[in-house]
């Protein structure tokens, strides 16, 4: 769990709770702090409380309990327009009755900036998002991707140090989304701004963020850099939510030398890394990534435990092969193998033995 009292915290949530109806907590005891310049993504399924957190930070929702601090100052009682936080909305929220230039000039006008200065800033920021020649158009005359760039420019034009983004790429097609992910990340790094980014798309979260906070049920389940999140999920929700995962259920038989021996419910013994289990007899859910499963015995430890498996289906996906197996009574066990010249294509119906390195297989909470 995150340490809520970092010295260099720029944005800080301190024991924040939020309830809309007085009966259910949407956000339960949120502690989070991020330093200046960090790109933090709040990732989670819908209803997990991530957007509510963002809205509390922006000032559109008030925290039921706890403090939100910006640069050390509590901002609970500061109205949104005085917080100076840039925000990119899900559907861009570009003002339809204004041109692009007027949209960008709006935050500067309300800050009583002179005309010449405004024009220079608008021009600069438009060029930054490569929309220089579109200043005179209306939002409805732009494509989704272009509107997205303008929305980003508008959140940046008044030089906010903190920019919030609420699923900004949700409405774009896949290819454009990938381009924009890169673009947003590049601009954020160049300007050194702090970004809090909300999404339910894990690929987006993994590619863009410095750290990812995985939300579920109003709590942060894990807060970690993308590689840690992917490779060392701390509980079975995170393991399931991030990337593809095979899970097997069983009981811990013994823990020895940092390796847990798990008796699977469907039969078979496997070696795991104990993460949420401490002693023999505990129920556990074992998680292993499809690409870490080996079926070539020569590449495993001689004394490693293996499982019998039957090949049910072989799917050619271009860069990888995806094979579905029946393992320990479950029919949804997936393995992925790289499409290399020497790679074996498994025949459906054939019997194989699978295994893995004990550290790739994590014994999590049941």
């Amino acid at each position, binding site marked *: 769990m995150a340490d809520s009292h970092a010295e260099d915290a720029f944005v800080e949530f301190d024991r924040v709770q939020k309830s809309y109806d007085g009966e259910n907590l949407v956000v339960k005891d949120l502690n989070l702090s991020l330093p200046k310049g960090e790109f933090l993504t709040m990732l989670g399924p819908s209803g997990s409380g991530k957007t509510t957190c963002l809205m509390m930070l922006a000032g559109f929702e008030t925290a039921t309990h706890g403090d939100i601090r910006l640069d050390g100052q509590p901002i609970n009682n500061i109205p949104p327009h005085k917080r100076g936080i*840039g*925000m990119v909305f899900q559907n861009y929220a570009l*003002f339809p*009755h204004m041109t692009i230039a007027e949209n960008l000039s709006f935050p500067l006008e309300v800050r009583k900036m002179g005309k010449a200065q405004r024009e220079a800033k608008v021009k600069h920021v438009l060029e930054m998002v490569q929309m220089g020649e579109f200043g005179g158009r209306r939002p409805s005359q732009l494509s989704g991707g272009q509107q997205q760039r303008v929305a980003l420019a508008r959140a940046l034009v008044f030089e906010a140090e903190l920019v919030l983004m609420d699923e900004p790429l949700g409405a774009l097609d896949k290819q454009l989304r990938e381009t924009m992910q890169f673009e947003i990340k590049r601009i954020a790094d160049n300007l050194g701004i702090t970004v809090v980014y909300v999404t339910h798309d894990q690929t987006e979260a993994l590619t863009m963020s410095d750290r990812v906070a995985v939300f579920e049920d109003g709590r942060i389940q894990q807060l970690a850099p993308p590689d840690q999140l992917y490779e060392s999920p701390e509980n079975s929700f995170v393991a399931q939510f991030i990337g593809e995962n095979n899970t097997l259920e069983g009981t811990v038989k013994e823990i020895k030398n940092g390796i847990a021996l798990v008796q699977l419910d469907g039969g078979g013994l496997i070696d795991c890394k104990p993460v949420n289990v401490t002693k023999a007899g505990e129920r556990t859910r074992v998680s292993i990534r499809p690409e870490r499963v080996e079926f070539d015995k020569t590449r495993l430890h001689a004394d490693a435990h293996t499982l019998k498996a039957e090949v049910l289906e072989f799917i050619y996906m271009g860069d990888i092969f995806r094979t579905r197996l029946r393992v320990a009574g479950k029919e949804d066990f997936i393995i992925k193998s790289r499409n290399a010249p020497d790679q074996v294509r498994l025949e459906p119906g054939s019997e194989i033995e699978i295994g893995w390195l004990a550290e790739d297989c994590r014994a999590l909470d049941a």
Partner: protein
Amino acid sequence: MARFTFPLTYPRTVMTSAPDTALSGKVLAADGTPLKRSLNRALRRQKLRALALIAPLLIFVLVTFIAPIGDMLFRSVENQIVPDNLPETIMRLESWDANGNEMPGEDVFEGMYVDLALAAEKKVHTRVGSRLNYEESGMSSLFRKTGRKVSRFETDAYEDALRALDPIWKEPATFADLFQNAEVAAALPFAARTWKRWSTFVTEEGDDPRTQKLEPYLSAALYYDLRDNDVPASAPAHLKAADALAAEITPVALIPEFLDAEEDWADAGNWRVIQTYAGNYTNGYFLNSIDMMKGVDGAEMRPENERLYITLFVRTMIMSLVITGSCILLGYPVAWILANLPARTANMLMILVLLPFWTSLLVRTSAWKIMLQQQGVVNDTLVWLGIVANDGRLALINNQTGTIIAMTHILLPFMILPLYSVMQTISPTYLRAAKSLGANNWTAFWRVYFPQSVPGIGAGSILVFILSIGYYITPELVGGTKGVFISNRIAFHISSSLNWGLAAALGAILLAVVLLLYWAYDKVVGIDNVKLGG
């Protein structure tokens, strides 16, 4: 990201087929007919089917809506009743000097005698009188009373003299045969015209002019012609005899007869009105509608004390604007609240907005009478609160205040509904976005929300303004004399004074004003900026 590249042959096939169509200039369909024609043929059937589907409504609208409006516009210029019934008079009045104060001479009275006698027989003389009475009061009774007496004029002396000369003149057939001779008819134009008008009327009544009892004015017209013109050589003997007799008869002086029946015939003003309204079409109704009148030398303003309509038009415009304005002021916040409440609550409150529609307009207006009168609820409350003194009770009804209050209430839903439906489409994120960009509540509203709601204001304003400019019942009930609209005057002319021509002209002007305002609105705001809903 590698892009999929087309095989090279694909663009080549496209290019080889392109020059064919470009050279021939015409694109052909598969069977060789030009593509355009075959497209038109395919679409024509669809269009016809669509037309057949809307035909009932189209016919209904044409018959019940377009046609009455056309008829109204026509009535506002139509004046055929005068030239149709007084042709002889009008012809003779042309040479009369309308600027003098002299009444016309005997010849005009001869024409009027025949016209009036025929009109009296047709029983239309009162309608001619009413028509002229719109322009000059007194004309109605002049025509009515004289029409009653015209049959007792001494002019049957001519008939008696003719019959004494030759009994053949008793026979209607004699007249009929006489005017079949073209030369005779040309030599005796007045008599021929009169015979034609009479025989046409008799035929229309379903009788035979050759057997119908003759009217004395036929003989009178014949006498006037014989007196003034020569009989052609081809005329029958009895006509030649009558021509000889005509020189000897002492004519019956018509002026004393007319003056005896009604002395107002001596008034040159009455004759001037007949002369002014002699045409088939007249702009008189329109001139009347803008407080002008047709004088001898063209249009002129009416005297101050007779002016009415311009004041009414201006008052109607100003009060409609005030009503529209107060509807915006009262309706905007309500629509805002409705649009920002959860759907369930909003629907429930919407019933309250629509509730007035389910109550009779008369009931609602009458309720305002109770509320606003001197001893009414509002005044009582103000007195009780000590805001006004008991002897200083406010006059809230039977004046413009009453009309404005009651009509604002009645027309409010027409403002709220379009506003609400437009506001519903404005996402609340715009306000959030504005605030996140640093705008305070007011700036966010005024710069971001309000401009987007303008189409709703536009639609509501057009609805309310156009409805109120033509409103009638409420001003009639609560407006008193100072709070009535032009529509009340139109209603008066339709149902009380029966001057439909003037009512039609007022209505046409009202229509023109509305269209003009609509056009101006389009120029200023743009009609595509008007939205009734999402």
